């Protein structure tokens, strides 16, 4: 069957659509042909796929072929079976007949003959030529057609349809199409079944020795081809997939050594998309096919179908894996393939797939993620191609032009060298090329990186090419190899060109000598035994490659450096662009960096800088510092060339802020030097520079600086410098940000003097002007280096900023400064609340209590109010103050300490002088509560007045009140002011209260003087005497002093004492009246006071009291008012009780009053000569009728105690509560009458008793 392969190929190539046979019985085809062919291709067809599921296919191509056509006629039955797919899928029988007899006799037998072949799917089209107006013809045609239907159609299947030429029915063509489709479907199903059966049969024999892959292939591909013709591409694809699987299984079967293929001219070019590249007959190998061609053929068939299915993505995806796996297969057979065949094949394959898929790919047709994936694959293909291309370029000596970047190194240094059976050797006529190449190698200078950065270049080769090439030469044994490399200490793996340039001098000389000796052609033959030099390797590779590469454009790309670069750029760009459109942004950006390198080489600096920037941003964004350190110098160099000062400076700063291990200190110093030089040069526009990564700052550890509102301060900040050397900052300023309110809280602190930052930690102090209350964090550090304004946002946590987060600005959260809301910083209070002695020099204590605030250098201004004066002659005392508001235990302790006389070690005492009303506080009082004792005297010229029952007025507390205005200036620059006015209460020592304790019969009055102590101090009375006013005199003609036995009298604080004076009324005599009248009595008390100034009143302040305390007797004077009594009743009038029965209207009643003489009337001149009293009864005449005398005299003895009763008869006139009659004594002064008991105000008068005469019948 394998013999049919060629035929199969031709058949396949000649037909690519379904065939519909036309059996033209009645020579109708020429008439209807155009109409029929108009229907092609079928717009929509329903077919069954391999799994017998209906599938709709569109634009199904087909061809109508007459059965008489040579294409259908000249076939052998065996061929028909094998290439069944090309046989007609339907047979249309075209008939016409107008006569029933003719039909019966001629047409019917003929038709029966035609349709007896069951293999064929047929149906009959009856063409009626009858004119529509020719009724007879129409009729007979109808009859014949009816007959036809009866004969050939069955219930199961309609096999006839009628075409009216002159007026075709509307649905005829649809009917026809559906019939054709039905036939095609049935045929297809049957043939699929047939092929499947055949394939199954063959598959079962797969492991038998007779098995022939070619037969299997023909069957399988026939099926696939049939599906393809029927537009069932999915099924066709599946067949090819199965075929590929089967092939891979069988081809790798052990024991069958087959040719791989790929040694023909032109095989280096991949044919992944052209199945017809090589006729299959050429690649047949025994019972199978050569792997090299056949796998490509299969892939090409698959990709063709995939493109038909609009699945360019899948082509790319399958293509990439195919290339990878096929490349491995090539590697296995590399020793039989031409030199570098594998690389060349991969390059062409990748480019083929990329171009084909890109041209077939329609944007927006697939889901977005598929689209991304598609571009990723394109990128991968480009990338793979690029790598292989670079490898070829390296082999022919363009290695020096390839950037030794991580991406190139990663892809090339892990890619093994080609492994030809024998490394190509230099062709004899290439000597001049070798020389020029050698010259090129010698002239080659490595580009020195900017800043003089010295890096060991990354390898582009898996191992040294020199060694690899020589090792692979047949004549060189391994032993020779070692000899060859002896005495080369610099030689090491992975730096081929490096080794060639860094050869030891002796080696260089030797190579020079060798080239000279080799210059003679005769010697050249022996070069095989001699290790090849690098230039020779390059030239040899070049020639070998030229031999391998059949594609002229590819060879052109490798023929010259410029061409190579162009191709390299094209591939790199292709990869980068596609990666950018996929998920793999990093791949894209990295390749951008490679493009940048080429741009840079061609002085297209602008583009290079842009690309480098992208790469740097990528690496910096994710903190890949090692990689960044590789690219950033390149960017810096571009920026420098472009004169982009800002960019260049920022690149330098970024270089400086990279991990210290990435650059040597010399390099880092070079970076700094660049920054400093540029900063001090004439910059056109001073540029701002962000040095956040380099200079970081933080507050000092520990709690924040706390300031009170309005206070200036000094802020200490730690600044970390990442510069390798000292750097001078011409100015420095730091902003503070309020955490609560961001709008107004930004304040800058400046330090205008130059600051030198050492590498590492620096402490910087800044003056802090008064700030608003709130809490502040550090904001931005700005400053100037030369003309350069820099700023740093970076806040470090007390350590140098870590390498890997230099792009992360950490917000300082810890406040560095707290300015408190205005609060009381100090309190001035009076030390005592009890009263002091008035008119005496007294210590007034002022407690100065600093509240967590130092009173350093505080100044107190004292301004006394009216009625108060500072005793200027005295010093002011200041002492530390033990707070009395301590717990009881503490008080007890301090009491004990007090007793011991050693209160506390830090007990301070100091005497101060008042200057201009100001006192400067001593240093020890900065933080401790102290008390300031100021000698003052309250002045009052009023005499104290005692109170008595006669004049009970109390002294108002305001009288003794004095004020002291205090103003304390404190704080760092006396910016804090505290003002307070203190009220100090002054009082007399005693309050005097007097009363007459008793009146003796002899006229002696006992005057009790009650002394109420007003002060919290013990008073001792040494003497007391009364200066009496007129009208009073001391009894017994004494001097008015109390019994000296009671003196001295001690009065405890707030207690009372009494002194009795006996006095009497003084008879007025003329002499005394002549004297100046003394209105008040004066009480004089000589007393002493023993009190503590910390408690209250105390002995008057004296200047430097001596050791022997002289008793200071003080005099207290108080005015007393003595008055003679005003009331002196001598008669008493009493209303005697009424009888118990009550009063009734009209009933007589006796009102009785008793008049009693209370004392003798001796002194009363008015009544002296009369022992009678005049009385008068007053009553309201409306209420009372009085019988008898209303007015008259009654005799009353002059003697004390004599009494009379006056009775008056009265009749009440009205009922109710009425005022009773009153008895008055008109002659006697009312003041001298005592009504005791007093008469009733009202009496109750009942209505008159009932009388019958008053009764009135109803």
């Amino acid at each position, binding site marked *: 069957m394998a013999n049919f392969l060629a035929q199969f190929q031709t058949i396949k190539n000649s037909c690519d659509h379904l065939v519909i046979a036309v059996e033209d019985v009645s020579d109708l085809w020429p008439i209807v042909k155009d109409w029929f062919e108009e229907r092609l291709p079928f717009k929509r067809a329903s077919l069954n796929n391999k799994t017998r599921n209906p599938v709709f296919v569109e634009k199904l191509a087909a061809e109508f072929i007459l059965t008489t056509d040579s294409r259908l006629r000249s076939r052998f039955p065996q061929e028909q079976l094998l290439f069944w797919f090309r046989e007609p899928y339907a047979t249309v029988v075209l008939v016409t007949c107008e006569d029933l007899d003719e039909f019966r006799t001629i047409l019917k037998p003929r038709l029966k003959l035609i349709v007896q072949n069951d293999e064929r799917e047929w149906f009959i089209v009856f063409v009626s030529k009858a004119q529509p107006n020719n009724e007879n013809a129409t009729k007979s045609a109808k009859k014949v057609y009816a007959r036809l239907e009866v004969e050939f159609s069955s219930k199961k299947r309609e096999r006839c349809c009628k075409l009216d030429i002159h007026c075709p029915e509307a649905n005829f063509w649809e009917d026809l199409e559906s019939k054709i489709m039905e036939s095609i479907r049935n045929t297809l199903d049957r043939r699929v079944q047939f092929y499947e059966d055949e394939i199954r049969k063959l598959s079962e024999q797969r492991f038998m020795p007779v098995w022939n892959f070619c037969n299997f292939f023909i069957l399988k591909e026939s099926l696939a081809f049939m599906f393809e013709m029927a537009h069932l591409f999915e099924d066709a694809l599946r067949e090819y997939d199965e075929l590929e699987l089967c092939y891979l299984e069988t081809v790798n079967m052990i024991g069958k050594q087959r040719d791989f293929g790929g040694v023909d001219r032109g095989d280096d070019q991949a044919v992944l998309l052209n199945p017809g590249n090589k006729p299959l007959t050429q690649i047949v190998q025994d019972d199978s096919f050569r792997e090299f061609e056949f796998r490509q053929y299969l892939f090409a068939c698959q990709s063709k179908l995939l493109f038909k299915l609009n699945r360019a993505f899948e082509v790319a995806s399958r293509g990439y*894996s195919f290339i*990878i796996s096929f*490349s*491995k297969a090539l590697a296995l057979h590399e020793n039989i393939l031409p030199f570098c065949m594998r690389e060349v094949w991969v390059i062409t394959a990748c480019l083929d797939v990329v171009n084909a898929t890109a041209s077939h790919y329609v944007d927006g047709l697939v889901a977005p*993620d598929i689209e991304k994936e598609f571009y*990723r694959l394109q990128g991968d293909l480009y990338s*793979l191609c690029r790598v292989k291309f670079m490898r070829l370029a390296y082999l022919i000596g363009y290695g020096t032009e390839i950037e030794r970047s*991580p*991406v190139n*190194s*990663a*892809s090339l*240094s*892990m*890619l*093994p060298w080609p492994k030809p059976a024998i490394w190509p050797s230099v062709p004899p006529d290439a000597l001049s090329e070798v020389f020029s190449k050698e010259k090129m190698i010698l002239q080659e200078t490595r580009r020195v990186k900017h800043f003089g950065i010295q890096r*060991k270049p*990354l*390898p582009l080769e898996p191992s040294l090419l020199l060694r690899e090439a020589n090792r692979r030469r047949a004549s060189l044994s391994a032993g020779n190899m070692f000899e060859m490399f002896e005495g080369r200490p610099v030689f090491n*793996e*992975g730096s081929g060109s490096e080794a060639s340039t860094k050869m030891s001098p002796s080696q260089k000389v030797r190579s020079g000598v060798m080239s000279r000796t080799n210059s003679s052609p005769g010697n050249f033959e022996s070069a095989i035994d001699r290790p090849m030099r690098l230039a020779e390797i390059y030239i040899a590779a070049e020639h070998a490659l030229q031999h391998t590469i059949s594609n002229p454009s590819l060879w052109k790309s490798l023929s010259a450096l410029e061409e190579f670069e162009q191709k390299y750029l094209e591939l790199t760009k292709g990869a980068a662009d596609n990666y950018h459109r996929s*998920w*793999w*942004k*990093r*791949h894209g950006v*990295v390749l951008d960096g490679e493009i940048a390198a080429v741009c840079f080489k061609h002085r297209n600096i602008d583009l290079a800088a842009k690309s480098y920037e992208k790469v740097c941003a990528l*690496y910096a964004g*994710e*903190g*890949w510092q*090692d*990689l960044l350190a*590789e690219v950033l110098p390149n960017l810096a160099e571009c920026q420098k060339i472009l004169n982009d000062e800002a960019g260049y400076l920022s690149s330098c700063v970024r270089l400086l802020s990279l991990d210290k291990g990435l650059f040597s200190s010399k390099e880092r110093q070079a970076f700094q030097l660049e920054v400093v030089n540029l900063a001090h040069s004439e910059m056109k526009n001073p540029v701002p520079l962000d040095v956040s990564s380099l200079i970081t700052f933080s507050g000092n550890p520990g709690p924040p600086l706390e300031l009170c509102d309005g206070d200036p301060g000094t802020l200490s900040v730690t600044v970390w410098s990442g510069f390798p050397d000292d750097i001078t900052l011409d100015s420095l300023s730091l902003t503070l940000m309020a955490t609560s309110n961001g709008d107004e809280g930004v304040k800058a602190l400046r330090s205008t003097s130059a600051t030198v930052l050492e590498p590492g930690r620096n402490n910087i102090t800044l003056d802090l002007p008064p700030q608003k209350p709130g809490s502040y964090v550090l904001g931005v550090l700005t400053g100037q280096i030369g003309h350069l304004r820099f700023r740093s946002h970076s806040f470090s946590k007390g350590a140098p900023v*870590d*390498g*890997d*987060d230099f792009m992360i600005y950490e917000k300082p959260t810890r406040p560095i400064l707290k300015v408190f809301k205005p609060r009381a910083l100090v309190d001035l209070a009076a030390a005592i609340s009890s009263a002091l002695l008035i008119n005496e020099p007294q210590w007034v204590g002022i407690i100065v209590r600093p509240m967590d605030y130092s009173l350093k250098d505080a100044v107190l201004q004292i301004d006394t109010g009216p009625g108060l004066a500072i005793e200027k002659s005295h010093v002011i005392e200041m002492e530390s103050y033990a707070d009395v508001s301590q717990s009881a235990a503490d008080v007890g302790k301090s009491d004990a300490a007090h007793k011991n006389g050693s209160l506390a070690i830090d007990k301070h005492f100091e005497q101060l002088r008042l200057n201009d009303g100001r006192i400067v506080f001593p240093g020890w009082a900065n933080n401790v509560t102290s008390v300031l004792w100021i000698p003052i005297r309250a002045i009052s010229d009023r005499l104290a007045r005692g109170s008595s029952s006669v004049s009970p007025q109390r002294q108002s507390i305001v009288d003794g009140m004095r004020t002291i205005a205090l103003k304390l200036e404190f704080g760092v620059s006396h910016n804090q002011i505290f003002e307070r006015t203190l009220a100090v209460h002054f009082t007399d020592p005693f309050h005097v209260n007097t009363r007459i304790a008793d009146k003796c019969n002899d006229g002696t009055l006992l005057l009790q003087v009650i002394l109420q102590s007003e002060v919290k101090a013990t008073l001792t009375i040494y003497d007391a005497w009364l200066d009496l006013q007129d009208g009073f005199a001391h009894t017994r003609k004494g001097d008015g002093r109390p019994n000296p036995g009671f003196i001295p009298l001690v009065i405890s604080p707030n207690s009372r004492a009494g002194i009795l004076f006996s006095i009497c009324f003084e008879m007025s005599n003329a002499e005394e009246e002549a004297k100046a009248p003394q209105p008040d009595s004066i009480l004089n008390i000589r007393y002493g006071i023993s009190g503590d100034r910390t408690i209250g009143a105390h002995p008057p302040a004296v200047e430097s009291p001596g050791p022997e305390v002289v008793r200071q007797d003080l005099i207290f004077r108080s005015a007393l008012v003595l008055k003679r009594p005003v009331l002196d009743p001598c008669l008493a009038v009493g209303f005697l009780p009424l009888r118990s029965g009550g009063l009734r209207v009209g009933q007589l009643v006796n009102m009785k009053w008793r008049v009693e003489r209370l004392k003798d009337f001796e002194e009363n001149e008015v009544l002296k000569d009369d022992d009678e009293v005049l009385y008068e009864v007053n009553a309201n005449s409306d209420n009372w009728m009085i019988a008898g005398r209303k007015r008259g005299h009654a005799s009353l003895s002059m003697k004390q105690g004599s009494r009379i009763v006056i009775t008056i008869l009265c009749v009440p006139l009205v009922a109710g509560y009425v005022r009773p009659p009153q008895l008055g004594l008109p002659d006697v002064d009312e003041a001298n009458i005592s009504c005791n008991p007093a008469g009733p105000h009202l009496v109750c008068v009942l209505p008159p008793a009932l009388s019958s005469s008053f009764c009135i019948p109803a």
Partner: protein
Amino acid sequence: MIVCVAVVGHQNNPLYIQSFTEADDALKLHHIVHCSLDVVDERVNNPKKYGPTLNEPFLGLLYPTENYKVYGYLTNTKVKFIVVTTGLDVRDADVRNFFRRFHAAYVDAVSNPFHVPGKKITSRTFAERVSTIVKSFGLSSAG
């Protein structure tokens, strides 16, 4: 076999990267690890496409290139482990096993109270442990 192992933080920042090649070419491995993050990102962003990877930290082969293989592993805290191998006959089970041990070592390293999360791992013990794990890679399957 293993030429490089790396720990990459959840912000794709390198936390630990160690190459095991003799040549001084760590930078290219940095590049490989960095670029492999593209694949990790892609897998994380398209969970549907790559099947239910819930609770499965092993990401499998990230890169099928001709010459080396990159495997990934993603922890719950979005820390990635990347390993680059050159051997072509690497078994998934071996890599899985390697990652499990590597993960354990990592967890121990970052559990150190002096380690700042998100910062580079500088622990020498970790480095030693990692190199032990790397050395023993594949031995179990071979032996």
